[in-house]
């Protein structure tokens, strides 16, 4: 593999959920990217990629948010996102949003081409391996957007294999949607709950101590369901484990 460029200037787009609920994930991303030799910039104007508007069909509102986001991200070598769905919004859907707007289409395509989900970036672009240990068993859930829109599947597993002492146990139905679906779980809570209940059952049955995934929305959904139903499985974003921050408070355990 050709060596990656030394110290690329990488914009970290933490995502609105990470910013609001679990900053820990943002700091883990920062730490891992620096360990991988990146110069990390956190654009201060970042807010949200616009996914809630996009998924609601509010194209104009989504485009307005997208324009701002493109503007603050485009001046970097790469854009890295600790979320498959947000990374996919930028990488796959921003160009679609500006299909009929040539000026913005070019800018959207340029940003899209250099936007990555964080584990895919660390594994495939940086060729990085973690240098940390955690004695635990974990099971990994493939969040749908990352999996199907960005092809994130093998990369997290390759990275997690490098964590000394961590055993990965297979999750039955690891590619089955957890029922979060962004606006879906708010609009159709009963159906979402039925889906999440099955997912929680599969996670419990895996026998793992920890649940890991690459999207905080999915993790909140699954962990919230597990905890409500009395499960002892604890959840982290995979990047927290990879950055050596898996010994702290899991999701829902922060004071």
């Amino acid at each position: 593999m050709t060596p990656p460029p030394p110290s690329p200037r990488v914009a970290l787009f933490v995502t609105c959920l990470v910013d609001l609920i679990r900053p820990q994930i943002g700091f883990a991303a920062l730490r891992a990217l620096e360990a991988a030799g990146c110069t990390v910039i956190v654009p201060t104007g970042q807010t949200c990629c616009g996914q809630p508007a996009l998924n609601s069909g509010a194209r104009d509102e989504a485009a307005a948010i997208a324009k701002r986001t493109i503007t603050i991200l485009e001046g970097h070598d790469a854009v890295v996102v600790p979320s498959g769905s947000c990374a996919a919004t930028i990488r796959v859907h921003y160009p679609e949003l500006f299909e009929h707007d040539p000026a913005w289409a070019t800018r959207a395509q340029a940003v899209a081409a250099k936007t990555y989900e964080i584990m895919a970036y660390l594994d495939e672009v940086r060729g990085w391996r973690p240098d940390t240990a955690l004695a635990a068993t974990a099971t990994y859930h493939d969040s749908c957007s990352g999996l199907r829109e960005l092809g994130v599947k093998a990369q997290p597993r390759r990275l997690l294999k490098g964590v000394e002492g961590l055993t990965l146990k297979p999750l039955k139905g690891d590619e089955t949607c957890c029922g979060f679906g962004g606006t879906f779980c708010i609009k159709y809570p009963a159906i979402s709950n039925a889906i999440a209940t099955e997912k929680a059952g599969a996670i419990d049955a895996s026998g793992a101590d920890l649940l890991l995934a690459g999207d905080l929305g999915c993790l909140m959904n699954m962990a919230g369901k597990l905890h409500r139903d009395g499960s002892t499985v604890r959840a982290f974003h995979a990047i927290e484990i990879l950055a050596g921050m898996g010994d702290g408070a899991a999701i829902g355990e922060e004071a």
Partner: protein
Amino acid sequence: MSASAFTRRADAALADPVLKIAVERTAGTAEAKRGIAVQHFAQFEQARVRGAAIKDHVIEHLGHYLEQFEAAATAAGAQVHWARTADEACRIVIEICQAAGAKTVARSKSMMGEEIGLPHALAEAGIGRIETDLAEHIIQLAGERPSHIVWPAMHKTSEQVSALFKQHHLEPHNEETIPAMAESARRHLRDGMLGADVGISGANFLIADTGTICTVTNEGNAELSLVPPRVHIVTAGIEKLVPSMGHAVQLLRLLARSATGATLTQYTTFYTGPKRQDDSDGPQAMHIVLIDNGRSTMREEGLAEMLRCIRCGACMNHCVVFRQIGGHAYGGTYPGPMGAVLTPALDGLAKNRDLPNACTLNGKCQEVCPVKIPLPTLLRGWRERSWREGLEPVSVRQGIAAWAWVAQRPRLYRTAVRAAIFGMRRFGRGWIKALPMASGWTAHRDMPAPAAESFMRRYAKGER
């Protein structure tokens, strides 16, 4: 805000433990079997690409192939009719039946017949309808609509079937076993099926160059319904065309594998026109009704890819929403992801806006579709149209507008985030059990409370 009709139906389905078992038994098994079939067909992905290309070619030249089909079918002695709407199609079918003096028709399974409301039209016209497909027979006895496009009676338990057969069959089964029940249906349907005046089928494919229709079945009932009667009527969507047999064959390799995991169905039958003079059996007359019912509009209004659909059912079998709520909750002819795309087109968006919304956009449906229909993209398209037409609830419109407004103003956004953290942490630390503004969430799961300060605030303060 009162629950919509869809939500009420979905809630009823979620509360039905028998339905869940039934769905797992059919859709769950189909998922497993398809997986095995795909494993054994190394070129499956290429076959999907080819299948999509064949269908796209036909869709682009639909008028041309319709004309070619009509000419070839007519040359083979069939009579070809055209129907713009469901009502027009039913009228044509009823007129043919009345002209033939039909007292009974034998139907083989056809989702198109269901789509145009043929059962109702036949009843109105006083023409007896014998459903010969076992599942269609069951739902006819129950007075219900199909709940799956491949297993219409998926939702019925064997106990329910047994009760229906005991009520309606002249010589019902003696033992409470499924083989005995199937035997009862075989007995009950046989004479009626063979003695019907008219046989009505759908078509899986319309082969343009020879004017041939193709049906793909497992029970043998189609052939037994379509060969003896005087008249064979075919009701088919205009999108069922393929240019030639060779194109049909390539799609046939995808169809059964995707639907049930079989290589082919038991019977793949090609009919070209009515009985020939020196044939020893077959119908005297064959009528083919080509039905538009919104398909030409779909092509022109951003839904062209939906016309690729070969009605395999894989999308619904793999859909996490369908697997929880079953088929009837969708409220239309077609359930699952393909139903969520088609129903607003066939029956109006305003009435059916829940269907494209009740989806997590996880993309599994697209992954398994044998002709690579971009179902999530089409569902997003409906959401956009719903938004443009002002059909979304005011609270949602206002919420999104407010969110978007704030999200474009970072300083205001930071203030809003601070307020949200403060507000949420009042309801708990660690895990929140009940959150009034998110009661849909906390009714069923805990919510992690936010950390004391947002990432952007901590970063700005120098934390690393």
